[in-house]
């Protein structure tokens, strides 16, 4: 076994250490301020937060499941008119950050706030995750099995219950988990819509009163909730099985006259999920008086600069770990890969809180500098980037590498001259996606940025804090254009689905 490149090992170990910071901070808080935390948790307010958070998470998860499932079934399995158009429409909310969606409604309806507003906004914003997962599962499920079930005496509804649903259940559970985690860690939309959940309370505890004990105690509860969600998903997901080759023509179910009604319903959902907010944001942006175009240009430039820098940093670390773990895998590389995932599903607010503590107490040199912000992005988005960067490398067939070796290249030379060039387009797409995610990030950016750094997201946030919703509209629109739309276009899952539906 050849030794892995020393740079990959060094970067990998560094990233693993960084990823342990949030966990370490939480453990420290748990031991150090246990009693204070307990006292904090015993407050009536904490119970209220808990109920709010759980209520919102459960209701959003169920609503997103219902919306996504109906969209997926109609576009993939029935003779819905214009199915590809509706598939695009169903994924469109992916291009709109949830806090931008919230702003779109708030700028038209100033009283749009509280539980129902948050439920409405987040359900629409998260339904594409369910839609994408369920459509893929439906496409790969066995159509002929459903016809066999009909011939064995089951009617249409019984077939959906006994054959279709069991085949897509793992995908449904996985996507609902994603939605639940998304809702638990959501900050921007919830804060803008003034609904109190843990993320907003943590942020306010820290920002408003610099009460780190209280913030940390709430963070611990939030992380515990996150772990509960993950546990339940594992427990009740059901066995995964490989669908046998789904051969045969994929016949669509004839809806008869109901197809027009179905199209109409999907149109309404699409209107709420993308149409209304987009129109309102465009309207406000066009009617802006005394609008400072130069300022917008500056913000776009600074946002892009930070995002690109973060994308490059994340990409380098992800590449190092992927190369190490995929081509020179050892027990250590596996442990590093696993550790990088440790921060996965941790709410950004919690990660940011840990880094503030880390920067202020342990490494004062980077506190309130761009480096702490980049470190935050690295910890938050490395797990995703590992998948995006690792997959194209893993997809390069071993045989190609072996042919290169037989032509006289060393293992390292085969890697740099053959494997990486083949995987390069995929790797670059992964880095670009990481950058676009950074562009939209709000809570960690707010807590970790240097004072002099303003981005589109922070500027939008500040405008909403003084209730200047219409002023925030151009920033929101700019975010959709430079971050949302490219991210949707790069979304491999969405692209694959749309090509299969049409």
């Amino acid at each position, binding site marked *: 076994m050849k030794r892995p490149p020393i740079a990959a090992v060094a970067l990998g170990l560094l990233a693993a250490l960084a990823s342990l910071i949030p966990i370490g901070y939480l453990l420290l808080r748990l031991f150090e301020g246990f009693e204070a935390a307990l006292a904090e948790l015993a407050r009536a307010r904490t119970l209220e937060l808990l109920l709010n958070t759980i209520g919102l998470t459960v209701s959003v998860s169920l609503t997103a499941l219902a919306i996504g499932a109906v969209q997926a079934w109609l576009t993939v399995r029935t003779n819905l008119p214009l199915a590809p158009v509706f598939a695009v429409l169903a994924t469109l909310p992916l291009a709109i950050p949830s806090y931008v969606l919230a702003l779109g409604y708030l700028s038209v309806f100033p009283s749009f706030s509280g539980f129902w507003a948050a439920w409405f906004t987040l359900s629409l914003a998260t339904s594409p995750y369910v839609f994408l997962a369920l459509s893929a599962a439906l496409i790969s499920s066995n159509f002929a099995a459903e016809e*066999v079930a*009909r011939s*064995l005496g089951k009617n249409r509804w019984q077939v959906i219950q006994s054959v279709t649903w069991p085949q897509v259940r793992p995908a449904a559970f996985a996507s609902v988990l994603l939605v639940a985690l998304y809702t638990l860690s959501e900050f921007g939309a919830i804060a803008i819509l003034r609904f109190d959940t843990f993320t907003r309370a943590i942020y306010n505890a820290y920002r408003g009163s610099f009460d780190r004990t209280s913030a940390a105690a709430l963070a611990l509860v939030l992380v515990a909730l996150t772990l509960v969600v993950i546990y339940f998903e594992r427990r009740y997901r*059901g066995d995964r099985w*490989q669908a*046998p080759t789904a051969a045969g023509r994929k016949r669509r179910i004839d809806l008869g006259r109901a197809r027009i009604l179905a199209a109409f319903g999907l149109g309404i959902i699409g209107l709420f999920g993308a149409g209304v907010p987009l129109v309102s944001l465009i309207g406000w942006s066009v009617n802006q008086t005394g609008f400072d175009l130069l300022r917008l240009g500056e913000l776009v430039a600074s946002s892009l600069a930070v995002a690109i820098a973060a994308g490059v940093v994340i990409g380098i670390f992800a590449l190092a770990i992927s190369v190490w773990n995929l081509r020179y895998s050892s027990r250590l590389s596996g442990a590093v890969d696993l550790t990088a995932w440790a921060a996965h599903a941790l709410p950004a607010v919690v990660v940011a809180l840990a880094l503030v503590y880390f920067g202020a107490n342990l490494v004062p040199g980077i506190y309130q500098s761009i480096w702490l912000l980049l470190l935050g992005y690295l910890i938050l988005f490395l797990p995703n980037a590992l998948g995006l960067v690792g997959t194209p490398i893993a997809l390069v067939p071993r045989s190609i590498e072996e042919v290169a070796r037989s032509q006289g290249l060393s293992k390292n030379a085969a890697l740099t001259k053959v494997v990486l060039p083949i995987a390069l387009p995929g790797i670059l797409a992964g880095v670009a996606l990481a950058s676009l995610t950074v562009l939209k990030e709000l809570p960690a950016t707010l807590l970790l940025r240097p004072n002099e750094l303003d981005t589109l997201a922070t500027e939008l946030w500040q405008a909403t804090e003084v209730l200047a919703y219409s002023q925030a509209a151009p920033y929101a629109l700019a975010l959709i254009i430079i971050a949302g739309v490219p991210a949707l276009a790069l979304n491999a899952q969405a692209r694959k689905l749309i090509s299969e539906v049409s």
Partner: protein
Amino acid sequence: MPLLEINDVSVSFGDTEVLSGITLELESKQLLAVLGASGAGKSTLMRLIAGFDSVGAGSIVLDGETLSDTSKTVAPEKRSIGIVPQDSALFPHLNVGQNIGFGLSALSKEAKAERVRELLRLIRMEEFASRMPQELSGGQVQRVALARALAPKPKLVLLDEPFSALDAELRGQLREEVRQVLRAEGATAVLVTHDQEEALSLADRVAVLREGKIIQVGSPSEIYNSPADVGIATFLGESVLVDGKVSGGKILTDLGSLSALNNVAEGATGVVAIRSENFYLQPNPTGDSEVVGRVFFGHDALVEVQTPKLRIRARSNGPFAPEVGMRVTVWVRGAVNFYPSS
């Protein structure tokens, strides 16, 4: 009265007529093979019988009950017709026993378990009841799919190219098993296939489907020995087509004067179809024909022969197949089918 009657059924998708004027009958406990190339309309016919599509004209009657006509299409679940699709389509989330028992919801728990055991015994897979579909081999998957279709004792079973995914050896073996299982269950079945060997060896009756029309219906030997036209003759097995003219009750061809199986009109011109196994190659150093190629299969060989005017392919018993370069005399054994040109 036949169990299944298909009366003058036609169906179009858009502007293209996929099936036209299909009329077929099937007696109880018989197996009908619908033989046709891909695109002939076989799968469409299956879907019409199963009730997944509606007929454009005509009717389908099973056991005296009209299932499909222009005014109605009885739902698939109310037809008592079992299907075995091409890719078997076992339910991936259920084990073998649960797959077979899927359609038995009307039975009591004990009766259901007993019926599942009975079928597992019949397909000789008793010890596989709790296996998942993805743990089975290709042949086992098809046997389970057949058992699942037979479990509720349907009036009719439809088999859609059930062996096409298997390799040749397994196919022959499974074919025999399927025949036994169907017989043991007393099932009536329709098999669609593009494999003439499958159709001829398995079926009681064969219907040849071409471009949406039934060209010929008959017993396997009728179909093989008296193909209705040149197309079927070449489709059902290797045949050599030779021009001929009727004269004095015989057909004059480049291979000599041959007798016809069918009635021929004096003076008519057309072609004769001669099966490759009906040639006899007599080794003869002064013969007028020469062996120019040979493909050896073990049990027999396909020998290519250049006669003074034609090049033919003859099937010859393995050990006695002449070698390339040998001179032979070509004989045609028995009578041939003559197809006058229209």
